[in-house]
């Protein structure tokens, strides 16, 4: 009967009515926004990816090296055959794919475990040193991931790759087996320690906005802490958890450095190795195809995600009745938990930083005597006999200039990306049941899986010349901002979505009744309520941009180059100290950046 009714309603009304309905639909802020964003994303994401797709079907100049039949510019299935059906497929695609997925799952599991655990402690429990823990929990992501790998080797290296063995063997005399020293095991551990900040940031932000009464009513019914955690608290932050899972998983899927560093000695290769190698050797087409494989995987994940956070379960934790936040007392458990926490912080943050710092001040690497220490890599004057006359990085105007450049880039990109993210979040959450925003959400995620180097190559190919109204952006600062914002969109949009999910619709409705236009509603209600989680998005982007290398290397010119692009020169010269010093400088800048970001957003809102 209802069916009939609604059916009946559907076909009432003239053409005018239908036109009107369309108009009304289009008048809604979230729809307008979806459309605008869609345009932006077409420019930033869709075109590049179409280009990428196109490339895979066309003979490239380099293909003449692989096949006599190659006629550059002509259509071909050669690349697809090469990747999926050739002697290479096994070592180029399937094995690395298997390895990637295994690594991805492993890392996501442990990273989320740690991240959520810490997030809960900081946001919901009365554990001491909360501020400290909160600050420390983000550090691992600030230090370059290879540092974690390095630390691992200093501990557990065996003599498979020659050189001196690790501290573990030195102390115990036991030779660690290869599977401990190299391959998937250490990769999963080091990457987990590196990536848990994703889940920490997103989940803790979500946790802080849950009304304690929801947990209290569980406690009243006699549920234990653990049970409440499992059945109430975690499900409530499920959106955030899923987001961080997606981010962590996909990131691990795409990461190149650490897996190569720890994997290659035992020939454990992941997809990115293959992508990097293909693109580096300038037969991008195969690389792109492999990238599409990654995209495929993530699309599946996102699909699952959207099924899980379905329309009906879109829950609100910031209600209109005001909410209390009370902390779970840990009681005596404190004394068991604190050590664990500190251990995590130690191995994930303190050790790596120490190691990094130590590298930058040791005259000769791997020599742990005091007289080996030197400030020269930081403050050394140029033109001396030391280090072939290289000046310490803080005395090197070129480095300082690029440092400033990096900061500007990181700040602007993260703000730009951050706001895109919040807007997307708004559009997506408001339009849960609609197609357009869904599409938006999916698109915003694509760039994440295109490996940096590939994405850079695409932008290079596209934006060196003017397209329509857009002038040639190559060599401009803008292009760097755009590509970073685009690449980090997933961070910011996920952060956006999760933060929006928490805000009760009635809170905005109330302000609409008060006569506020959308702009005002956004500034005064939505933004303040979502900023806490959004900031975590900002910070993640800021960090990533500061550290990004592969993505921009092709797009920077002498004028627009960034700090990380400078590390290359020293690695190539074999001066680990210099490049470590730069990495450390980056870490310091990131520290300052995220600290400032936090304090700025603290003002106004109260605890």
């Amino acid at each position, binding site marked *: 009967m209802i069916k009939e009714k609604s059916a009946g*309603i559907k076909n009432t009304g003239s053409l*005018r009515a239908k036109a009107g309905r369309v108009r009304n639909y289009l008048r809604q802020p979230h729809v307008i926004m979806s459309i605008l964003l869609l345009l932006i994303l077409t420019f930033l994401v869709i075109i590049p990816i179409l280009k990428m797709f196109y490339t895979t079907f066309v003979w490239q100049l380099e293909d003449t090296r692989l096949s006599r039949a190659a006629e550059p510019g002509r259509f071909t299935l050669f690349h697809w055959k090469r990747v999926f059906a050739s002697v290479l497929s096994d070592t180029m695609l399937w094995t690395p794919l298997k390895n990637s997925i295994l690594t991805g799952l492993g890392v996501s599991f442990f990273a989320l475990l740690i991240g959520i655990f810490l997030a809960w402690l900081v946001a919901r429990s009365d554990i001491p040193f909360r501020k400290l823990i909160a600050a420390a929990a983000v550090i691992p992501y600030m230090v370059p991931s290879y540092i974690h790998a390095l630390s691992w080797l200093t501990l557990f290296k065996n003599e498979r790759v020659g050189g001196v063995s690790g501290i573990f063997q030195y102390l115990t005399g036991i030779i660690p087996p290869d599977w401990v020293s190299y391959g998937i095991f250490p990769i999963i551990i080091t990457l987990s320690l590196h990536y848990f900040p994703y889940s920490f940031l997103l989940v803790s932000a979500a946790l802080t906005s849950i009304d304690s009464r929801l947990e209290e009513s569980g406690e009243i019914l006699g549920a234990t802490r653990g049970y409440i955690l499992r059945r109430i608290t975690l499900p409530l932050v499920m959106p955030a958890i899923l987001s961080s899972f997606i981010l962590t998983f996909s990131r691990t899927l795409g990461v190149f450095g650490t897996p190569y560093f720890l994997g290659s000695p035992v020939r454990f290769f992941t997809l990115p190795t293959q992508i990097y190698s293909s693109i580096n050797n300038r037969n991008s087409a195969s690389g792109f195809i492999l990238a599409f494989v990654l995209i495929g995987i993530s699309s599946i994940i996102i699909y699952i995600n959207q099924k899980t956070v379905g329309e009906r379960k879109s829950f609100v934790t910031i209600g209109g*009745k005001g909410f209390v936040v009370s902390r779970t007392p840990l009681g005596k458990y404190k004394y068991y938990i604190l050590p664990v926490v500190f251990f995590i912080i130690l191995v994930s943050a303190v050790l790596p930083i120490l190691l990094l710092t130590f590298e930058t001040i040791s005259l000769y690497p791997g020599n742990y005597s005091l007289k080996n220490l030197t400030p020269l890599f930081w403050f050394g004057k140029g033109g001396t006999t030391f280090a072939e006359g290289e000046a310490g990085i803080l005395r090197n105007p070129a480095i300082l200039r690029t440092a400033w450049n990096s900061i500007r880039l990181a700040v602007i990109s993260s703000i730009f990306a951050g706001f895109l993210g919040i807007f997307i979040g708004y559009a997506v959450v408001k339009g849960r049941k609609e197609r357009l925003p869904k599409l938006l959400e999916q698109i915003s995620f694509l760039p994440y899986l295109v490996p940096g180097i590939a994405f850079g190559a695409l932008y290079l190919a596209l934006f060196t010349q003017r397209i329509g109204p857009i002038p040639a952006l190559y060599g401009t600062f803008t292009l760097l901002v755009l590509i970073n914002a685009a690449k980090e969109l997933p961070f910011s949009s996920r952060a956006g979505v999760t933060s929006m999910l928490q805000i009760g619709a009635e809170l905005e409705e*109330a302000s*609409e*009744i008060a006569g506020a236009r959308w702009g005002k509603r956004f500034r005064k209600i939505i933004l303040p309520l979502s900023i806490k989680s959004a900031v975590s998005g900002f910070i993640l982007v800021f960090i990533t941009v500061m550290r990004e290398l592969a993505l921009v290397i092709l797009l920077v010119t002498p004028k627009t180059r960034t700090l990380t692009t400078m590390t290359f020169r020293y690695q190539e010269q074999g001066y680990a100290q210099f490049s470590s010093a730069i990495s450390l400088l980056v870490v310091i800048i990131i520290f300052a950046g995220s600290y400032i970001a936090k304090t700025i957003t603290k003002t106004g809102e109260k605890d």
Partner: protein
Amino acid sequence: MSFVEIKNLTKVFGSVTAVDDVSFSVDEKSFLMLLGPSGCGKTTILRMIAGLETPTAGEIRIRDKIMFSSEKGISVPARERELGLVFQSYALWPHMTVFENIAFGLRVKKMKEDDIIKKVKESLSYMQLDEMANRYPQEMSGGQQQRVALARMLASEPALFLMDEPLSNLDAKLRVEMRAEIKNIHAQLDATTIYVTHDQVEGLTMASSIAVINKGSIEQLDHPKKVYHYPSNLFVADFIGSPQINTISCSRESDDGRIYIKTETGERFKTSYKSLSLDAQTLTAAIRPEKISIVKSDGDNTAKVKIKTVLPAGSETIIHVSYGKKVLKILMQKEQELNVGEEVFIHLPENDILLFDPETKKLLHNLQALKT
């Protein structure tokens, strides 16, 4: 001239029809009360008028201006409807102090800052929240939050008030005062008001008309008195008034041009009905608990009953008596020494007996009765 006009309004949530083809109109400056059981669609109606919920079908006019029309495909955004709404869940902004919460709407109106301060202070003191200006919602009690929500609406003096159970969390005393406040603000501002409540006293004392809603459609829209004394059907009769109305199914007899009813236990009661629109043999008689009086001795329109329970409740006493298989409720004011189990006589004044058609459940009409 009607200020708000609703035509064939319908709202379907998935498989639930929350509001089903509702039409009514509210005159300017008048005070319409939406009464109805929980879940009957009150909030939804209010939200559609406010423009927060898109009706599945129908038309909404305010000041003769079409705000929504599924035919014409018009839909004016809430922002431009110039009305005030108090949410059932107060919808206070947790990141703003009480002051900011109230000032928001005024700021939107670009009011001068010191005027704002004046206005906020004023509406806070209406609501007796003077010291609370700098609290955050989560630092207040339920009732205090609810009053802030009210103050927020009143501060921006809309021409149309929509209130969704604005007093549900207040104590009787405060509620009485708030009612008075609302009424005189309503008078001062000449604001048309649509008011959702489940509190009948509110309905019966404040409203200029009452719409009784059931399962998403209107059962009766009328003056409070009419609704109470001449409920158009058994649902309304039963829903309005507490304790509930007594209903007795009985057979019809007539005698010297009057309608008499005969109950199962055999007593005959005289009614005020002379003629009836229908000639069914069985009827449903109904009488309000407070109309029944307890008398010492037998007589016309009386029956012997046995006291079952006596519930003293402040100013009044509710007495349950068993009459045959049925239990009748009686509401008395003066306290009377009555012992449970005691046998007494009850008297049903002929003018207070209402007759309903057992099939259609509709009130039966009788010119005489209607005159009074």
